[in-house]
């Protein structure tokens, strides 16, 4: 078995050893979903549609946000910051293995138990709101959704990896973490679908990477985007993916030159 598959397996086993943590964290982040149902039902009692969203597409949007937001998280990862600040990188630097791909594998592995819990609880939500959700049967839309999710995973990872590597240059990343925690939900579409924002704001957001980590894949699934918007979206996402990969590699290389391996 490849080393990276074993890392995924070990990360699953490690993550699953904290089962209660998985369930509690999922319940905590799914609470806004319950509020979203009440809020948007009230809103759509007054209006039929906002931009091209109706009640089923809005509720489906928030369900997918809850299911995907953890695996597509693009903020600072404290595990990487801690590896840099407390010398934990050391154990990986002496081995013939890539730290970047090791971290990708860890992220996949740690998210699998979470995703399973999310899937089970999400299914309950789907069952209770069956007639109020969007279910697509178009294979092409499923394929595009899958492609957008895979690209979003790597895009979010490279963003997250890049921000975390700032720890090479600063002892305290809490300022960056705070800024990200404020802006990320807004820029990624976690709070509202991007198309709910004013046109001028949307025009900027489509060229920033964060929108592609949540809003774009979900809207691809919902079919709320035109073919031109989908084509442009995939192109911009791909360009960001390539750019962020090289930025992450450059930060890593330069960071290692000043790494001090403090505390062992």
């Amino acid at each position, binding site marked *: 078995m490849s080393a990276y598959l074993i890392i995924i397996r*070990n990360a699953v086993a490690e993550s699953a050893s904290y089962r209660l943590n998985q369930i509690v964290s999922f319940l905590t982040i799914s609470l806004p979903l319950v509020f979203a149902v009440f809020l948007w039902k009230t809103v759509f009692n007054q209006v039929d549609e906002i931009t091209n969203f109706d009640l089923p597409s809005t509720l489906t949007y928030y369900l997918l946000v809850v299911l995907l937001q953890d695996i597509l998280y693009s903020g600072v990862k404290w595990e990487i910051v801690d590896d840099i600040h407390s010398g934990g990188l*050391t154990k990986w630097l002496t081995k013939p293995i890539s730290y970047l791909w090791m971290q990708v594998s860890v992220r996949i592995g740690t998210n699998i138990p979470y995703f399973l819990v999310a899937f089970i609880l999400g299914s309950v939500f789907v069952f209770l709101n069956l007639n109020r959700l969007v279910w697509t049967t178009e294979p092409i839309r499923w394929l595009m959704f899958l492609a957008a999710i895979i690209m979003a995973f790597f895009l979010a990872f490279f963003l997250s990896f890049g921000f975390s590597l700032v720890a090479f240059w600063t002892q305290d990343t809490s300022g960056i973490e705070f800024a990200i925690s404020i802006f990320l939900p807004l820029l990624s579409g976690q709070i509202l679908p991007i198309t709910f924002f004013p046109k001028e704001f949307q025009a900027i957001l489509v060229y920033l990477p964060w929108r592609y980590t949540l809003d774009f894949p979900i809207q691809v699934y919902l079919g709320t985007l035109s073919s031109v918007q989908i084509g442009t979206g995939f192109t911009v996402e791909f360009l960001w993916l390539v750019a962020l990969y090289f930025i992450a590699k450059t930060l890593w290389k330069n960071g290692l030159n000043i790494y001090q391996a403090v505390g062992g």
Partner: protein
Amino acid sequence: MTISVQNLTKIYKRRLLTQGQYSILKNFLKPTYEKVQALCNISLTIGQGEMVGLIGPNGAGKSTLIKILSGILVPTSGDVRVLEHIPWAHNKTCQSQISLIIGQKTQLWWDLPALDSYELLKAVYHIAANDFDKRLARLSEMLNVTDLLNVPIRELSLGERIKTELIGGLLHNPKIIFLDEPTIGLDLSAQYQIRSFLREYNSLTNASIILTSHYVRDIESVCDRIVVLHKGQFYYDGTQDALSEKFIPYKKLMIHHQPGEYSWRLDPSVVNTSPDQASAYLPVDQVDDFIALVVSQSPIYEVVVEDETLEDLIRRIYNRLSK
């Protein structure tokens, strides 16, 4: 040569926080740094199978040297070759033949049994299944941890954990093993087991061992060659025997005498432990004269003369270095 170091220098940048009025603002707007020279123009070579002990007071540069040799730190200047590769270039061939074991850091997955981490190492180093099984069986038997391989690391005692770390670091049969304080915090029995293991492992595999430790017994038992570092420079590089020859050997005297006030008890080299007992620590060429003086002044029950231990000698060197 397994390891070759030429004119190696490492300078760190360390942030200074100023005190006083508006210090927070000053530190934020205009951070100040100082340069710390961890290693200063050092050169050495280490051959295959050598067991080298790096010693020196805190801040001497031991860990920095090990971290540069194992590819973790990039030096400021100088040429370093480990198995003919530049270590910080992270060449996979080189990485597959070295191992770094740090006593106070775990390299294994904390919440999982050691076996899960070993499976990963087997894949990382492309160890054949047959070799893996044989090495794991032999190492776990040598270290007496066969029954602990299925226990999560977090549930092991410190001594057990270090042993499982050692196995993890040796499964790929490295040609060079870097050990940074491998016995730190261990009880005497566990320290002894680790030392015996390292000697046995070296004789079986001819691996080079580069060891740093503040426990002189580790160095004394494991290493044939000692390198004393002080403020980033080599103060001594040679065998254990030559070390005590270079620094005039001392003897330890234990004197049991009839109680009384004698002038020799006021000598600076004498420690009076009780009214009828004293010990003295003297250069070997002064021992006979001192005993003659003691015997001439006081009735003696017993005088025991012992050779200086390596620990005493190293303490003496550190004292000299700190002056």
